[in-house]
């Protein structure tokens, strides 16, 4: 009976989109979404956009190493690195690892956080106590040092960031989702569905999931920023993947190659600006949710 009425509601996918309520009338949100769009396109067409292979060591027409060229010299839009690599091409390819890390980490954080939050809030009891104590412990782990220590055991790889985020940063999402589920539960219809004989799984998928999705999405988009910032820090500290070009790697390369002393702003400013753009795009989209910027305070 109850299921029949539920069936008449708009489809699951449509409800999700409706409930996300992407704030298209807010100029900041539009700005943020445009930046996301721009970077996604750049990542997809990186091979077409970048004039050079980002790791290729280039030479000038007179067979000299094309090192430390200034922007514009020899057609290098942003100049070259001390090793003779094209900076613009590195920026373009950097968007790939940024988005890859950002989206994967965001997905993991949102997924794990949501599952823990839903299980905790829905089943309550001892499972809730155990999971929330685990969240307490995760809150006691200093995140960046944890990623660094992890890097000591695993091969240097940008995926360490994703693993560490999945292991530690689910805590914020989980707490918020849990309290949302508790609120949802208190509104009778979960109990009504139970009485009507729906299974827990069915109730969670039909009634709980669509309602918490916006919040998962929100925390996911915040996590994109965290992931990109963390990846940059880790790469900068030299624990990144030397094989893949990321903005953090570029900054480490520049720092180690004395770009600061050489006043090579064209080298280390663009990667930083790209990071700021992508991360702040996430903030702008979620503007108004100020407390989300401060996950530690939302307790």
């Amino acid at each position, binding site marked *: 009976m109850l299921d029949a009425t539920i069936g008449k509601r708009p489809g699951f996918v449509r409800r999700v989109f409706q409930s996300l309520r992407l704030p298209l009338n807010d100029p*900041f949100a539009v700005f943020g979404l445009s930046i996301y769009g721009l970077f996604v396109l750049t990542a997809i067409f990186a091979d077409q956009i970048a004039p050079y292979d980002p790791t290729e060591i280039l030479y000038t027409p007179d067979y000299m190493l094309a090192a430390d060229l200034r922007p514009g010299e020899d057609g290098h839009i942003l100049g070259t690195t001390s090793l003779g690599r094209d900076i613009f091409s590195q920026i373009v390819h950097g968007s790939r690892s940024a988005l890859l890390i950002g989206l994967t980490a965001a997905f993991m954080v949102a997924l794990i956080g949501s599952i823990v939050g839903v299980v905790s809030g829905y089943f309550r009891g001892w499972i809730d106590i155990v999971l929330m*104590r685990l969240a*307490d*412990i995760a*809150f*006691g*782990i*200093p*995140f*960046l*040092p*944890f990623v*660094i*220590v992890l*890097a*000591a*055991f695993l091969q240097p790889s940008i995926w360490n960031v994703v693993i560490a985020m999945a292991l530690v940063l689910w805590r914020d999402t989980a707490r918020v989702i849990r309290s949302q589920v508790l609120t949802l539960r208190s509104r009778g219809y979960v109990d009504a569905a139970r009485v009507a004989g729906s299974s827990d799984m069915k109730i969670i998928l039909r009634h709980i999931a669509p309602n918490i999705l916006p919040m998962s999405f929100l925390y996911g988009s915040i996590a994109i*920023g965290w992931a990109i*910032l963390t990846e*940059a*820090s880790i790469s*900068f*500290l*030299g*624990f990144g993947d030397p094989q893949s070009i990321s903005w*953090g790697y570029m*900054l480490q390369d*520049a*720092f180690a190659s004395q*770009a*600061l*002393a050489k*006043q090579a*702003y064209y080298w*280390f*400013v663009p*990667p*930083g600006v790209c*990071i*700021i753009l992508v*991360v*702040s795009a*996430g*903030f*702008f989209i979620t*503007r108004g949710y*100020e407390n989300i*910027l*401060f996950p*530690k*305070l939302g307790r």
Partner: protein
Amino acid sequence: MPHLKAAISRTLQLALVLWAVVTILFLMFRLMPGNPMAAYIDPTFTLEQQQALMAQFGLDKPLWEQYFIYIGNLLQGELGQSFRYREPVATRIWALLPNTLILTFSSLILAYTFGILAGAYLAWKRGGVVENAAIPLVLTTRAMPEFWLGMVLLAIFSFNLGWFPAGGTRPAGASYDSLWALYTSREFLSYLALPALTLAIYSQGLPLLLMRSNMLDVMKEDFVTMARIKGLSNWTVVVRHAARNALLPVMTSFAIAVGYQLQGNVVVESVFSWPGLGRELVNAVSASDYPLAQGAFLMIAVVVILMNLIADLLYALLDPRISHA
């Protein structure tokens, strides 16, 4: 005294968290690939040193026994020998902790002073041009990689303008009679300025936005209107009543920010070659100096957890509704 009970239970809860973190750390370093003894013994140690450490940490005993020995050693502040420095890890860490704390607190005091004032100002001037420009700007500072900001400041103020030294805590070859003499010297301040400013620029967003939104809420309260009806000066109304009430959660956030800042320190200390815990952690991990890495991590974790506790206690202390329940 119900708040005393709450404080004790919170303390116990955080002690439990600390124990869990310590255990995770133990398992991570014991279960890592390769020789399980690698966590404490460097092949280049002399045979006697190796045997002494074997005995001290019970490395030839079963894992569960090692665990109790490990906990016992920790409680005595015994963290093993650093591979690189050939000295006890604890000694090394205690020597670095002041540098890290000085950097953390000076940057946070700067950030909070600015953030609280600017946040209160923005709340007061709600809806103006200033606010429309300031909020996106503040969000942008939150989106910056801290080390990148440090690089930019270094390139400009140190390498280009030459106003500040490029890194470290003291001029090469300089020696001071005591740590106190170092920390109070003018040179030290010039070394401290850029890293502290870097961290402060990143951190001011938190107190600023928090103060602003709290102020906006408090300004709507009846007691603020009443203060105006009482004919109190605008200053008294805004500062003594609105700001004092809005400040409460901001002050609490300070303690949490200290714990949080320690993480940012890791990268910023590396940029400015600041001899602190974070940079030591990075160097230790790079050099596979596992005992030192473990010790530095543990110390950071202890400060983070301690600061969470202080935040809770501070809140109870500052809010008469809790402290005078």
